[in-house]
């Protein structure tokens, strides 16, 4: 337990450093990049000291770390607001979108995976797996516009973008959730198939337990274990994927903030947003790890 905590802390420091050096060690001068070639030297110096770039690298690094501890991520070059404030404003929208996509993926994946596993080898199985393959192969930056075209523009059923109108959550959630649903369905299928071959399932069958109870009660609870790990890992992919989905639907979350900040060359905001997403990803992964231990006593004993 303690070593796990230690590795998490080390990884966290690694991520923080990676994000810092990403911005600071890249060839080229950010000031030049932000102001352009025609800027006056005095303006460059002013921005340089505003960004703290005139200090030695290690001093910048320790300053950055001590700021992080106080949740001080610096100020936006564009709006002059604190980065932490900007991020906090956007977190609820991203969470709402990710959770909706997550739930949707689970609702699609479980019935599909169970259907495929219980009828393995039939055309139901290959159909479900074909569907899953289609799901992972459709890029979300294309699926989004196509859904807008079909449901918003042609059928007029849903809003095109934003999050104010009712029903605005539907298309973004579908766009973001489809690939997760596809991956998850495959995982549920293979995990359930493995469990269905075990001895205790045969025993249950021999005792005359109905197939329904066997699948949904005996088998699925054990088949869920590896799926949980995957869910944790995939939630991170969801957070990262939301960057593109938010851009497609102008969904005002952290991802859209990141993309806008990149276009405005607002480095403190870019740094803060990348850090926030990466740290949430790590935390979710480690929580899943813990959950896994709670659900499966075999791991705790081993």
């Amino acid at each position: 337990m303690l070593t796990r905590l230690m590795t998490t802390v080390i990884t966290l420091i690694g991520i923080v450093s990676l994000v810092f050096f990403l911005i600071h060690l890249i060839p080229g001068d950010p000031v030049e990049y932000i102001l352009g070639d025609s800027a006056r030297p005095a303006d460059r110096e002013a921005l340089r000291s505003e960004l703290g770039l005139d200090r030695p690298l290690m001093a910048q690094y320790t300053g950055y770390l001590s700021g992080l501890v106080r949740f001080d991520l610096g100020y936006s070059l564009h709006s002059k607001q604190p980065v932490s404030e900007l991020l906090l404003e956007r977190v609820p929208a991203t969470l709402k979108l990710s959770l909706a996509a997550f739930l949707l993926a689970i609702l699609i994946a479980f019935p599909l995976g169970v259907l495929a596993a219980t009828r393995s080898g039939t055309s139901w199985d290959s159909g479900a797996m074909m569907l899953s393959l289609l799901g992972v192969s459709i890029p979300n930056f294309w699926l989004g516009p196509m859904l807008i075209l079909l449901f918003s523009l042609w059928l007029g059923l849903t809003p095109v973008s934003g999050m104010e109108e009712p029903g605005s959550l539907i298309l973004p959630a579908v766009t973001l959730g489809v690939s997760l649903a596809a991956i998850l369905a495959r995982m549920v299928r293979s995990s359930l198939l493995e469990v269905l071959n075990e001895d205790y399932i045969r025993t249950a069958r021999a005792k005359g337990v109905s197939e329904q109870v066997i699948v949904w009660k005996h088998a699925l609870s054990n088949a869920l274990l590896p799926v949980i790990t995957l869910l944790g890992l995939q939630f991170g992919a969801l957070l990262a994927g939301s960057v593109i989905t938010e851009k497609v639907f102008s969904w005002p979350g952290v991802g859209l903030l990141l993309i806008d900040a990149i276009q405005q060359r607002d480095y403190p905001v870019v740094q803060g947003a990348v850090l926030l997403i990466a740290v949430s990803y790590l935390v979710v992964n480690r929580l899943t790890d813990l959950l896994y231990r709670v659900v499966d006593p075999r791991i705790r004993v081993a």
Partner: protein
Amino acid sequence: MSRWFATIILLCWVSVVLLQPLLQTTPNEIRLDAILAPPSADYWLGNDALGRSVGERLLAGAEIALLVSVATVVISALAGTLIGALSGYAGGMTDVIISRIIDIMLAFPGILLAIALAAVLGPGIDNLVIAISVVGWVGYARLARAQALSLKQREHVSAAIALGCRQGRILRRHIIPLMLAPLLVEASFGVAAVIVAEAGLSFLGLGVQPPQASWGSMIREGADFLLVAPHLAIFPGIAIFLVVLSSNLFGDWLRSWLDVREETTRA
């Protein structure tokens, strides 16, 4: 069935790119009389907001996609395999340090790192390849490390050590060749992942720059004209979808043909 479908699509993709010089396409030529024109007999896939031929831009995008995916997969597979094999074979401190780096990279959502890198490096094809490779090598390294760990226990390696082979030769001749099968499968899924990454970054405006055509940037430009000219966004998406689907199918087939356990990651 699906194997043939995948092979045909992938062959079409490669041959279209190779034959392009013969076709004398002009993907960047602006035709003011054909702005947002729907598909016609002259331009099968229609024209975009500047009257450029969507079909010819699709071919130009195919070249970018092939170029970026081959370069990125080769670079990240080579680097990842070498680093991973070295780590697993050498053991000790080398392994601890490299494993920790791999863990940190894996703890970072890949596309996010690529977005951040592409943003900092600036747009352009070479920077695109760098950004996706920096993210991509980790998967190969993890795989190669696991393989090297188990392979170095094999008897033929002990025999080679007993015969006095040098470390580099053992790694090169006795370990790396045996780990090629799973790496090949990973590379096949890698092509799909890189195409999605390239198109995604170009969609966000971080990849290929105008006027050059990329499937991703074509979708982005098309998204502004969805109602009046849906063909702009539809066709490049179909191209991406077909190629990605085929690479995934091909990887699936390769995995079962080479009899590799399902431990590689899908795009």
